[in-house]
């Protein structure tokens, strides 16, 4: 097994004719993901990347029985694209788009939640179950099939750490970038619960950063509910307060959301937190050995 995406995934690419959709769509297909179609309003009937383009999600779902969607639609149109996919009954939506207004995301979040849709992102690299399916923008080749679950708020930092794991001989069950925005569809706790019940995942690497309290909430959840070991890393110890560090959600506001607080919370919950990304492989081996 793995979580969220696998060989059963029948993927739709929203925004498939745009430059991002074209570039990453080709990579997704190369990886072996089962892409069944694409959506771009007004471009219905065309063929691209070997699949049919539809003008509406409704038509795409009717013709292809798609059960997942990845959104590469520009920020100004992304809210509508995700709401359209929710309305057509797609239950897994991965929104890559960066720059969606926070208040729009509140509407989207509750619409997804109230319709039992798993929304990953926005502003995220997506989800990959190595060897099975890749739904996002991460470089597929750095991943290996295995038993470590990875969940992160970041993109390239996740790739860095995944590469460390792969080099250390630690393959991954599924790697999920939950996104760098203040309001995201799926939080650490949601993913931790999925990893906890996935028989293929043996340990989890959690990669957090400044802003919000999701890491603290995750620490509490791990302490209360997780039997599988978790290794953490938190970025942004040197980040100044009140400044947005690239990600819209990476901001220390009102003195809250510092890296230090998050590390303290994780350690208090018995989670080992790496000081450097290149320590993570060893720490994972340690917790696995201790468990065995």
């Amino acid at each position, binding site marked *: 097994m793995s979580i969220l995406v696998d060989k059963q995934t029948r993927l739709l690419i929203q925004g498939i004719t745009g430059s991002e959709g074209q570039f990453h769509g080709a990579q997704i297909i190369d990886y072996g993901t089962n892409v069944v179609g694409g959506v771009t309003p007004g471009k219905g009937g065309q063929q691209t990347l070997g699949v049919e383009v539809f003008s509406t999600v409704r038509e795409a779902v009717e013709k292809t029985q798609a059960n997942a969607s990845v959104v590469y639609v520009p920020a100004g149109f992304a809210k509508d694209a995700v709401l359209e996919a929710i309305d057509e009954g797609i239950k897994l939506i991965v929104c890559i788009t960066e720059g969606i207004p*926070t208040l729009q995301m*509140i509407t989207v979040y509750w619409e997804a939640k109230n319709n039992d849709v798993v929304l990953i992102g926005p502003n995220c690299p997506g989800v990959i179950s190595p060897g099975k399916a890749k739904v996002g923008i991460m470089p597929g080749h750095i991943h290996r099939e295995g038993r470590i679950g990875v969940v992160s708020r970041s993109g390239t930092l996740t790739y860095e750490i995944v590469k460390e794991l792969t080099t250390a001989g630690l393959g991954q069950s599924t790697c999920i970038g939950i996104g760098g925005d*203040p309001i995201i569809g799926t939080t650490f706790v949601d993913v931790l619960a999925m990893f906890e019940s996935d028989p293929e995942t043996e340990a989890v690497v959690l990669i957090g*950063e400044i802003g919000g309290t*999701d890491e603290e909430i995750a620490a509490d959840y791990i302490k209360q509910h997780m039997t599988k070991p978790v290794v953490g890393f938190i970025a942004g110890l040197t980040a100044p307060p009140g400044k947005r560090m690239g990600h819209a959600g990476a901001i220390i506001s009102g003195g809250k959301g510092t890296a230090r607080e998050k590390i303290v919370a994780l350690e208090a919950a018995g989670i080992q937190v790496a000081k450097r990304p290149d320590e993570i492989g060893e720490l994972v081996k340690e917790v696995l050995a201790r468990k065995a």
Partner: protein
Amino acid sequence: MKIHEYQAKAILKSFGAPVPDGQVATSARDVRKIAERIGFPAVVKAQVHVGGRGKAGGVKLANKLAELEAAADSILGMLIKGTKVHKILIETAANIDHEYYIGIVIDRARKNPVMMVSAAGGVDIEEVAAKTPEKILKIYIKRHLGILSFQVRQATYFLDLPRGTAKSFSLITQALYGAFMAKDCSLAEINPLVLTKDGEMMCCDAKMNFDDNALWRHPDIEAMRDEEEEEPLETAARKKRVSYVKLNGNIGCIVNGAGLAMTTMDMVKHFGGEPANFLDIGGGAKAEQVTEALRIVTSDPNVKTVLFNIFGGIVRCDLVAKGILEALATLDLTLPIVIRLSGTNEEEARAMLKDTALLAMPTMSEAAKEAVEVSQR
């Protein structure tokens, strides 16, 4: 994005909230005219984005014209936490009976706006939250419902507002929430919300921050941007769509991806150095972005060493190396540059950079360590 008090008050006023009669001025010469219109007592307030202006002497009360002119003269041009005062707000001074706090932010965990009210207004609300959290009432708003009457009543009782102010208080909460939602705020607060001796409610100070991702929807708000209040290098970076935050160290960091950029700064610190900045050139790392990034980072006179940390995932390292070489050819740089390129085609990239003065390192940790050592030589 941040705006000034006088701009936030204008927005609140347009949503129906009571604000003192006043006007912004950029010169002590404007003072007389404004005073003739609003009368005395009047208050002069420095318009700066940084906090703590009261303690710095940036707010002064005046009972007659000579005092007002003297106050305006002393505040204009004053430095508050390193920011020069270019504008002052002159307005009618309220006859204060009590000061309250009311503010709205996004509650990230609850995925909805939250309104906070407190009877301990007029002071730093973060301090109130830290020391006496029981003095703050949080009202959880549901976006699709808005603020409900019972929630306003709860706040009224919590604040122990006198009879006769409930209607005015309700209007102010609706105005603040209306502005917050309509203008895509990330923060909107009135502090203090004053109860005057005449029993009236008045928004005597206001602060609004906006969601940068939503500014395209609000050209009126974008037009309120005051570049004099921003770090010049950050403004230059924003215009080039490079995500940059200036810090106080001497190792300039250029990284692809925000999380990796923060981690790179942390590694510099870990090895005993101080990062000069946060900079994310984005996942793609194209040649023109590399050039702009180098230009911005090296414009900071504190920078002694540049540290590149690029994780080439889908982007090929040889293409990034090409971008760096092009950038170096167009810029005349003498600073030592440490570079770490990892990922697809990293060997080709290293070969391309072999004959340059760049110090190529295989890992992030080694590169950060090298940059710190070089900067200390």
